[in-house]
């Protein structure tokens, strides 16, 4: 008996000692397992990584400045010097596409952060308190959700005026309604757990229970929502920029590159129309693939959530 206890203690101690090192290699192993089981998800992750690197290191990856007008280089076809050709003002398309990644990444991550923070605030409190508070909040969310996404965003953008921060605000506020619905649903099932009841029994306040006991348990849902949301937000940003409510020129955004005065040159220079759209599609595809795979592994209940905003 004593022997057994001692073996257990040494085992525990050994495990304790191994932990920091083991968690590092366990993470690598988990990543490897993810890549093997979800090759398409891994591909998506790779695309996302490339996008982030492109945005962060844009000045080093681009060949020219995004607004640099090159003399005698109007509407040049793609080739060795200009990988994606040049536009009607003689600007290098590759450089503009690379810098455009900055807008997409900033808007995507910014809006997701805002939407999920607001969504968690509304969703967790609504699911936790329930009752009249829940009913009132949910009616407002209902009303908010019954507008078509693009119509609300356009109206908000008209109020705020174009600009990077305003897009993030508009997308974040609108996205929050959707996020809060899903988070509320998860919260309701988490609240039923015994540990929430015991937390209440030992006298924890509402705030402490929500932050320390419920939030960590809905984090998985939030991560999945965020990854799927990123693709949708990038798509929405491009649509807004396309309609002229995005980042003001000359700063390149992929959606804006497909609209405006340049449109009449698409017939002479189809590469002007092709590459920015390809960039949007690839970026969104990456996030969707990664999000799908993450959802299957972390939270299969969320199947059918998310998708697209137009």
């Amino acid at each position, binding site marked *: 008996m004593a022997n057994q206890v001692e073996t257990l203690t040494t085992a525990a101690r050994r495990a304790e000692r191994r932990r920091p090192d083991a968690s590092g290699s366990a993470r690598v192993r988990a990543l490897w397992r993810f890549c093997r089981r979800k090759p398409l998800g891994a591909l998506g992750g790779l695309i996302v990584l490339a996008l982030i690197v492109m945005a962060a290191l844009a000045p080093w990856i681009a060949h020219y400045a995004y607004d640099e007008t090159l003399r005698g280089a109007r509407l040049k076809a793609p080739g060795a010097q200009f990988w994606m050709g040049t536009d009607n003002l003689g600007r290098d398309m590759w450089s503009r596409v690379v810098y455009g990644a900055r807008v997409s990444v900033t808007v995507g991550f910014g809006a997701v952060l805002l939407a999920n923070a607001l969504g968690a605030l509304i969703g967790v409190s609504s699911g936790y308190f329930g009752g009249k508070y829940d009913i009132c909040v949910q*009616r407002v969310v209902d*009303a908010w959700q*019954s507008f*078509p996404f693009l119509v609300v965003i356009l109206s908000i953008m*008209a*109020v*705020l005026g174009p600009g990077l921060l305003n897009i993030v605000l508009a997308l974040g506020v609108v996205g929050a309604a959707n996020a809060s619905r899903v988070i509320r649903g998860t919260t309701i099932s988490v609240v039923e757990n015994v540990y929430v009841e015991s937390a209440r029994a030992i006298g924890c306040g509402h705030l402490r229970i929500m932050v320390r006991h419920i939030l960590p348990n809905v984090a998985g849902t939030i991560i999945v929502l965020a990854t799927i949301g990123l693709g949708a937000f990038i798509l929405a940003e491009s649509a807004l920029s396309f309609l002229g409510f995005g980042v003001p020129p000359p700063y390149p955004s992929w959606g804006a590159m497909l609209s405006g005065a340049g449109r009449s040159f698409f017939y002479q220079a189809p590469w002007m*129309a092709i590459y920015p759209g390809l960039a949007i599609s690839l970026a969104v595809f990456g996030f969707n693939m990664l999000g799908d795979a993450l959802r299957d592994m972390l939270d299969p209940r969320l199947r*059918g959530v998310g998708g*697209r905003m137009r």
Partner: protein
Amino acid sequence: MRKYVLRRLLVAIPSLLIASFIVFSLPRLLPGDIVQLMLEERAYGKDLDDLRAKLGLNRPIYVQYFEWLGSVVRGHLGESLWTKRPVVEELTRRLPVSLKLGALALLFSVSISLPIGILAAVRQDTLADYLSRSVAILALSIPGFWLATLVVVLPAIWWNWSPPIQFTEFSADPWAHVAQFILPAFILGVASSAAIMRLTRATLLEVLRQDYVRTAWAKGSRERSVVLKHGLKNALIPVVTVLGIQIAQILGGTVIFETIFGLPGMGRFLFDAINQRDYPVIQGINLLIVSMIVLMNLLVDACYAFLDPRIRY
């Protein structure tokens, strides 16, 4: 059932009231002052205050809201600040265009997504399944306005042909009138079909593992009957729910597609109104859209009872 629909209608009223307040107050927060803008572009009044009084914009906002709400109930949506034409009249002219576009898009969407979703579920983990799932994610990722742009530009370069972007009335040329809707509706439909297809596959897979489906197999039903009669009918409830959401998204999508393809519908009207800060028009269109969506959701709920007789209201 009738009692349920009545109760749902009553519950929809507060939602609609909140929505109407959002609809009303949102455009009024515009930073650019409509009065300033109108004075700059065309001289309507003597000065700012004069014009403001003429438009009734000088009174407190809640007075304006209740006045507006009162006239809405009586079927008036006011008149455009720019053209002075009644909003209701403009909408009755433009709504059919958007409805045709939306209905056709929905038709494309359902007729693409349901068969493929069923096939992917029944032949799970085969090449057909992988292919259709990959194509669906791809369709979710491609921006519709880009696809629409390519469809207009590329044929023009390759074959010197481009889809019509000049609007033709039905009375002028019925065939051309219908034809101009097909392409935008198809692109709009493809995008929303991806979401419906994925959900159809996921829910059908779940249903096909149920005991009653095994019973259906055991009693010797043919595959067609098992999948369509026992499987699909039970898998359709979430699909119908998403269909309701998709209708809202399709309505939003009309803003982009009517602009690209030159269709004089409600979406383009809204886009122009937002650019011109035309409050009554923005309010009128948004209110109409919201009411249509609330009604649609009610219809979706009523569909549940039809699809699943266990649901009693």
